């Protein structure tokens, strides 16, 4: 490998480190709302970063790269869901005892209610109400139509409103 290539890789590596240091925690927060579990969230962030790493040199500005990583993070989250060999079965109703029980117990009823949403709806909720993306932006991240985002959002809100986990007294 010649010196120029080495220097370019080192520069790229340093910048990538800087990006991860600056934005890694924000990515982790989104991942935590998706997975409800600290370890899975870290796994999801690292997986998304690993998949995106080779694109670092192709994308000029950090904002563009962060959008790229987020897209990978959300689509990876959905693909984890579909990956049957993990033993996870696609279902509309999650079991009463979620896999992320320790974190859910600590973080209260909203995360319990989130855990009961189908993954597509959960992803839309996090994109729209945590990331504050518009419907069109959320559709771009998920690679689906705006109509799908609208319908998923509506179903998610209906489910959250009727969730037994969200009692009035908890709102105080």
């Amino acid at each position, binding site marked *: 490998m010649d010196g120029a290539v080495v220097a370019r890789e080192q520069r790229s590596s340093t910048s990538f480190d800087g990006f991860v240091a600056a934005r*890694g925690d924000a990515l982790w927060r989104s991942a935590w709302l998706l997975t409800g579990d600290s370890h899975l969230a870290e796994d999801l962030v690292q997986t998304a970063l690993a998949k995106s790493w080779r694109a670092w040199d192709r994308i000029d500005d950090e904002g563009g790269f962060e959008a790229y990583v987020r897209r990978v993070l959300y689509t990876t989250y959905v693909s984890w869901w579909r990956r049957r060999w993990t033993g996870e079965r696609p279902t509309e109703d999650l079991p009463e005892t979620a896999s992320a029980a320790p974190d859910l117990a600590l973080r209260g009823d909203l995360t319990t209610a989130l855990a009961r949403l189908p993954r597509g709806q959960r992803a839309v909720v996090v994109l729209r109400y945590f990331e504050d993306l518009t419907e069109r932006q959320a559709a771009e991240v998920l690679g689906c139509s705006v109509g799908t985002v609208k319908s998923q959002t509506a179903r998610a809100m209906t489910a959250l409103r009727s969730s037994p986990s969200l009692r009035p007294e908890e709102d105080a």
Partner: protein
Amino acid sequence: MTDDQWLRDHLTSSVPEPPSAPGRADAARRRARAARRRTAAVVATAGAVAVVAVVAPLALGGSGSSSPAPAAPTTSATTVTPEDVACPAGGTQPEGPGTLPDGAVGVRLCQGSGMTFQGPADALVTDVDALIDLVNEQPVLDMSGGCTMELGRGYVLAFAYPDGSIRTVAGQLYGCEPLTVGGVVRSNAELPWNRFNTLLAAQRRELDPPGDATTTVSCGDAADLGLSPVGRAGEMTSAVLCANYETASDQGPQQAAVPADDLAILLADRVARRRDTAAPPESCSQPADLRLLGVTAWGDVTETYLWCGLWSDERGHYWRPGADAQRILDRLVEEAGSPTPTVDAGSSAEDVVAAYVDLLNAGDRSGAAALWHPVAGPPDLPTMYSRVDYKVEGVKSLPRISAWRDATLVRALYREQIRDAYVPYRETSFTLGRDEEGVFRIVSMQLGDVVETGR
């Protein structure tokens, strides 16, 4: 405050502080490089297969024979039986050399620490040294970045040597994918796993299936044993249709045997109509979880399962049945039937309420009515509902002064839904007591307050 704003505020406050992760970028880079190595290895393996395909006819049929004989196994397949290579009873060897010696006569794939799978009944006895080389060339795992627990399969490869000794290698297909060889933890556990399965499939192509392989399967087998990593859904020689309904009571899957002629039609339709890219929608509503669970001539348990109108398998193939195949599947679902909950003196009060809800949802009102106590007055069955939902919140015994034997209170959230209309849950109390035969029966059901949910 609007719902939207409430959700925004509470999502933000729900997220915990991220843990310190100074090695996150390094870990991501390591994963990226490992993925690149895996991709390169797959490409190299595919290339090697292509080269063999070209070279083999030259080696075997140099005289121009139009039908060369199949290649013989390259090692002493005839002198080693599967019994010679057994899964070790004592687990893996955590200490010792971190390198496997050459010269193993066979290797068997066994269950390790992780999710269950069905290990193949036959041992690999060809090209074992190639597998040993692959294990030995894996780099030592760098544990400095920490490994996460993404649950997957765990396996053990048990290598048998001519002197009767056994050496084991343990792999985990999750987290950092550690590959433990003696006292050394290497990386890339997925590579030996894939290579073993590829080599075993190649070995089988040169041999006849064993005459004593399991030829039948039942719906509980996949849950108990797991699925085979080697078997393919298209190679089923017998199968059952399994239908799992969402029930309040603990019901196993319903099952219907697939006649051989029908299985042949289904498999042919699957070959003709299979797609590799038409992924099903993310979510849908289906009354039952359907699977075709089958066994191959080698005894491998394999399956294809229905999700949102498409049948999928472990390898990411999708199949939308044609009209004839669909008729067969529909008939099998009908034959399998829907679950019929039963109760007896061994059933708890909670079991009886769950059975009651299931019978209501199955439309069996007389069965539901029979779960009411015969001397408690007429059963209070719901009249207008499309589905009953029920979640137990607590169970407690009532004081002995109660008029009912072993009187028990089941507290639950309960609602009678009407199509898609939103119906809130209500706090509901079921009181039960044992009848003359000692079976819990419902004495009364009291609908309480509406449970205010959401905002």
